[in-house]
């Protein structure tokens, strides 16, 4: 499947097209060995089975009905779709944003703390495609940026996933409010919507419009209050992120 990739600032900024990315079994198999958090054999087969709702007419002779029917009685495993999201995000960073291997850290999850899926190391340079999205690139911090990735079937599910991802990114901001205040408000969420009329990958870049408000709130709130405030429509904290409210 070849999927359009778009990049935007915040949740509702204008889109910039980054072309299309070709995703297939082979590519997913290889990428998931490097980027998926869970050990899943033959991720490529899961990718085919989970994502191809029904084979196109010219391929039905190869697939037959059995694949789709076999899945009818089962749900997709969240761990697998999560892995697909991470894998696609890794591919997008490499191919569409031009991030070198040395700058992308896939974070091996720890059991005690929720961690971002990736840290993008911008200590030396910020990728030009990300800089181009920012409203105020001169303020962008040269530090590690948190990255969350999600995959979901439909646009509605993607909206829910983005809420959860933003909460996770906000949790990273909260934890670093003292040791790395510069990162407050900066982060990336990559989503992969794989069904519906138009499958797509969207890269959302977050930038603060009023970093001081975020820092002040993080200094006075608990982690749960802060992350909830970031997701509450109309809150001052949400308003302190560009193109989010």
């Amino acid at each position: 499947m070849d999927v359009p990739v778009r990049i935007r600032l915040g949740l509702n900024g204008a889109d910039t097209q980054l072309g299309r990315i070709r995703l297939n079994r082979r590519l997913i198999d290889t990428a998931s060995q490097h980027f998926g958090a869970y050990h899943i054999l033959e991720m490529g087969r899961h990718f085919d089975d989970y994502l191809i709702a029904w084979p196109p007419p010219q391929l039905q002779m190869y697939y037959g009905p059995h694949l789709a029917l076999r899945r009818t009685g089962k749900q997709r495993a969240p761990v697998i779709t999560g892995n697909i999201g991470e894998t696609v995000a890794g591919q997008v960073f490499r191919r569409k944003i031009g991030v070198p291997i040395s700058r992308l850290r896939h974070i091996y999850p720890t059991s005690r703390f929720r961690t971002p899926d990736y840290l993008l190391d911008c200590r030396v340079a910020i990728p030009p495609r990300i800089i181009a999205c920012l409203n105020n690139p001169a303020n962008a911090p040269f530090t590690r940026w948190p990255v969350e990735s999600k995959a979901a079937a439909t646009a509605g599910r993607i909206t829910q996933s983005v809420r959860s991802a933003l909460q996770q990114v906000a949790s990273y901001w909260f934890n670093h409010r003292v040791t790395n205040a510069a990162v407050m408000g900066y982060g990336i969420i990559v989503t992969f919507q794989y069904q519906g009329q138009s499958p797509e990958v969207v890269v959302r870049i977050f930038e603060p419009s009023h970093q001081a408000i975020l820092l002040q709130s993080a200094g006075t709130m608990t982690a749960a209050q802060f992350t909830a405030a970031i997701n509450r429509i109309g809150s001052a904290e949400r308003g302190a992120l560009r193109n989010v409210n």
Partner: protein
Amino acid sequence: MSIDELSQELEHWSDDEYVLARLALWAGDVDHAIQLLDELLASRGYLRNRYPPNPDQDVVGAAASRLRRQAARLRGEVRRVAESRMPQISDVPHVIVDDKWFVRATLWCHRERRYQALVYLSELKFESRFYEIINALAGPRKYTPGSPRYDLPSRKMAALRMRDHLESISEYSPTIVVEGLPFIEAEPNDFGTMEVDLIWTRRELPHEVGQLERPLRKLLSRFQRSKSPPI
């Protein structure tokens, strides 16, 4: 360590060993991965058997610590698997390394006549050179890391979709082929790694690992550090 000191340190700590350890684990080069993770933990002043003191601050350090414990547990398992599958190769997993190279490789046996080497970048500063050399060795299909190999005009894309489902994307990947015994086909990917298939084409089986290793070393010797390494 005070908060101020921690903030200073966090920005300067290198994460490269973590990235390299992940590549080494992909290749099953477990001992080397553990060594890299130990270096990373030591450089941060962490004890290797203890959880880092600030895991929510130093996310990479915490991940490295967890990965190190997991790798140590898996080390024994990898050895057992390798020994059961490679009876003619005693030193397992068989690591192929040279001080002059910026890649490392592990050699694995799939069947009597089919072997696979997993090659990975062992110095991150040579990433672009890795792909330059691949392009020099590959046939007409060239590879540019970070740029879309599969970005073709949409008309061509539609025509390719059918083939894609049938898994013939290799047509669009650069491969390195070395004729001889064993026959070698290497396929690089986006992640600083390369899968090298070695097919033993004689009826008589190889009787020592050198028969596989020598041609492989010849190929890997192309991945040498240049006199002036790229930045």
